[in-house]
């Protein structure tokens, strides 16, 4: 198991752009290809966005399917209330991109 400190990897505690998520994706991919399991450490981050989670977690789930849960663990993600929600959303969006949620229903009403 190799721990990737995301803040150290991307050089900032502000993981707010997609580009940083893709850096995490590349790093995790390279470790997994070497046969290692990966622990992604979020604890030194101060800010994240959905775009960051989609690019990192969403794409890792897309690549490995349910094997993702064996290959990649996360820690420090409970530092902020909504990070777990963003993590789960990134995975769920890949699992079922067409599945509408509360937000989709509310927004679709605006366009009726």
């Amino acid at each position, binding site marked *: 198991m190799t721990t990737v400190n995301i803040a150290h990897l991307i050089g900032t505690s502000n993981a*707010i*752009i997609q*580009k940083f998520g893709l850096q995490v994706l590349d790093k995790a991919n390279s470790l997994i290809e070497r046969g290692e399991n990966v622990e992604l450490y979020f604890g030194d981050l101060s800010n994240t966005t959905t*775009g960051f989670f989609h690019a990192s977690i969403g794409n890792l789930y897309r690549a490995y399917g349910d094997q993702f849960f064996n290959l990649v663990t996360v820690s420090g993600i409970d530092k902020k209330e909504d990070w777990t929600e963003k993590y789960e*959303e990134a995975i769920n969006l890949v699992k079922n991109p067409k599945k509408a949620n509360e937000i989709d229903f509310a927004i679709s009403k605006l366009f009726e």
Partner: protein
Amino acid sequence: MAYIFKFPAEVRTNAQGNQVLANFHHYCISLSDVWVTIDWSGLNYMDANLSAVLLAMTYRLKKERGLKFFLNAQDLKGPLSIFWRNGLAHYIYNTNKKPDDERDSTIPIKAFKIADVDKFAEFIERDLLKHRGLDNVKFTDKEKVKGSYFEIFNNIEIHAKTQAPLFACGQLFPKQNQVIFTLVDLGVGFLHNVKAFTAETEKIVKAEDAINWAIKGNSTKEEASGGTGLKKILFYCMKNNGKFHIVSDDCYWQFDGAINHTRINNPFVGATIHLIFSYN
């Protein structure tokens, strides 16, 4: 010959106000290497957050048309003195002085390189959310508002396709418990990317349809797995009496409880996003 653009009595954060600024840009874009007077002698009020739009316009016009701008200091009195305090006038005059905030309502104007996440985060966290005017706002609300601005920043970083800076400015309205924050990029706008991406599918060719498409959570970037950032901001506004305006190409798109759009003549480039949050 004197080149003078006269502003009307009021410019607010709405389609009419945006049209005034678009007209100013349109007036200037045909000129080169001359002084232009920004005539505020008849202006009684302008939302200070619109400084970001005006600064983006003058930045582009200085760079691409060699224009220089003059503002009569006599006009920067009373309610318009905020444009000294938020720094716009310093930028126009090239004084190299920093914004001088003496009141609760002012948020300084700032320009960022489009990938400078740390400066942007510091601006949002220090200059906006730690502003003494927002002392009574709940932490959870501040976190939501901050998250929304970061989602917008991410969206611009992905889609704007420009090396030009990003301009930001806000204004607090303590009596109304409201904060308006404006971000302006000089990129390609919403329609450019969406039109190309949907050429074989929905064939979107109008700016309002491109913005609607993006706001519903679609994304032109496969690796983004869906552009849920804008959708979440809209949902937050729906739940919290917020307002969300997007100006791109010839469309002023706005959510003020319902979605409306207004056609803009002689549009400016890139995208302007206004977020208006209410707090208790």
